[in-house]
């Protein structure tokens, strides 16, 4: 019987909000292949977090795995896959999932298809599969053929909803891999906490500025509006590259992907690499001098004109409210 393994990461016992997303396509795949589905996580701390999922599987334990250590994680997973003869391994394609899977694939010398959105065909010629995967951070898709004995995939984040826990406590067996102490060389040695508060990723409203803002000082008016609305300031890559804003404010393919209730894009044209970062926003308001700017035509609402003048008027209007 085909055995499918899903790697689910936990960070010292805590699951990220998206941690279980890869299980959803994995359940469908197990159904269509009539295969068994099990999960693996690293560190005893993950046991309590993952038992409620209701799947059987493995908690991988070893002294070197006392904290996140991508090389050691990859080796451990590769050993589990070989010993238990899993033929399909799936993980979420978040930072850690992508990294651990790449290590495992390199150790076992197998291909790894990154950021899959659909497993289109599992009955291709010579046992090959056809999958759809993300390119350009989501601006483009690729139909890819996977020719290999073992099928390793990461699932594009925010593509599938996480499944509801099925209630039953799955028996998770402890698996102890052989890992040389030397692999502790890539383990986390320290953590630094930064001030908590609203972040770009979690704010309900993001007031974002691009080249049209014109200077670092000119962002003050965006800050003022963001403060009034209980949100944060974001920006385009032009603002980052000009040194107007820190990169942690950048929205887009190589910045942060956000999904606020409202995204206010001021003086941003809407290049595809910016758009993929903000397209999940519930509502978008574009403020731009150019009525033909792509962000204006893709937005839900737009105001045409100079952003400085418009933001000043909006702030005055808010302050004048009873």
């Amino acid at each position, binding site marked *: 019987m085909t055995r499918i393994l899903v790697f689910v990461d936990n960070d010292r016992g805590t699951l990220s909000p998206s941690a279980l997303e890869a299980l959803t396509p994995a359940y469908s795949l197990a159904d269509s292949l009539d295969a068994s589905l099990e999960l693996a996580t690293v560190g005893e701390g993950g046991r309590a977090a993952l038992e409620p999922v209701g799947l059987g599987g493995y908690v991988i334990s070893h002294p070197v795995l006392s904290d996140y250590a991508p090389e050691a994680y990859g080796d451990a997973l590769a050993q589990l896959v070989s010993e238990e003869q899993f033929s399909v391994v799936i993980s979420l394609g978040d*930072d850690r999932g*992508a*990294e651990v899977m*790449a*290590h495992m694939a*390199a150790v076992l*010398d197998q291909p*790894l*298809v*990154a*950021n899959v959105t659909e497993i289109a065909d599992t009955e291709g010629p010579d046992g090959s599969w056809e999958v*759809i995967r993300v*390119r*350009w*951070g989501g601006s*483009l*898709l*690729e139909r890819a*053929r996977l*020719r*290999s004995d073992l099928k390793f995939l990461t699932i594009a984040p925010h593509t599938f909803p996480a499944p509801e826990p099925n209630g039953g406590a799955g028996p998770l067996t402890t698996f102890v891999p052989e890992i040389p102490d030397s692999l502790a060389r*890539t383990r*986390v*040695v320290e*953590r*630094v*906490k930064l001030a*908590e508060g609203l972040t770009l990723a979690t704010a*309900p*409203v993001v007031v974002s500025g691009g080249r049209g803002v014109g200077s670092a000082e000119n962002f003050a008016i965006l800050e003022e509006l963001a403060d009034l*609305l209980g949100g944060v300031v974001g920006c385009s890559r032009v603002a*980052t*590259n000009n040194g107007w804003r820190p*990169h942690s404010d950048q929205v887009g*393919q*190589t*910045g942060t992907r956000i999904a606020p*209730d409202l995204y206010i894009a001021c003086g941003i*044209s*809407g*290049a*595809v690499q910016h758009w993929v970062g903000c397209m999940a926003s*519930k*509502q978008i308001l574009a403020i731009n001098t150019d009525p033909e700017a*792509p962000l*204006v*035509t893709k*937005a*839900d*609402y*737009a*105001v*045409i*004109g100079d952003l400085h*003048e*418009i933001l000043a*008027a*909006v702030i005055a209007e*808010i302050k004048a*409210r009873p």
Partner: protein
Amino acid sequence: MNILVCVKRVPAPGARIVLTDDSQGIDTRHLGFTTSPHEECAVEAAVQLKERHGGTTTVLTLGPPDAVEQLRYSVSVGADRVVLVPADSTEWDPQATASALVEAIKDLEGDSPFDLILFGNESADSGGYQVGIRVARALGRPVISGLKGIEIDGDQMVGRRETDEGFEVYRLPMPAIAAAKEGITLPRYPTLPGRLKSRRAEIHEVPAEMTPGGQEMVSLLKPAEEVTETVILGHGAEAAPGVVRLLEEVGLL
């Protein structure tokens, strides 16, 4: 500190991506080319480390002859030496790419390994998130991805990686490998002397054989696009009341 940075030439689409008629690629007739911002920042990080600790910065790309444009650009922002690994076949998946890079790197290194090899976290177009890790595994060197900070402390590379709460710190014995994210540092713009130097820069060619991998592109397709009817709230300052009404409706006021 001798540092190698691997970069990939990619088209730079603007407001929309247009595919070729056969859906095998992006229609690049009207596009410029670039590298991923992650890789641009990796080049800058390497140049800054060299400026601080001495040594050389080498930039390498595997690609078509036109990729010399990206190599020359890297000279204009401070790279000392540039290497082209010529490639013309289309059968390059991440495994194949990594295998050819490993060959080329061994050839360049001889008996003296680079202290540090930097990659982008993922390429701009294909985004496989794996070439740097595969190369590191083949060379038996430690590797960490997603770095937003990098420093040298004696014979160790100290890397910082962002998390939801702050950042994690890693210490890798060198020779080491790392994949950088945009924001690790701010790339500089080319200077005029830099540009002049880049025009004269010698391009070292290092041929390398690849071992085919198991992933193959069949075709490209565009994601379904929602068509939005944009509501124009007004022009200039007169639109302010409309904007405030929207803010109220969304529940922000």
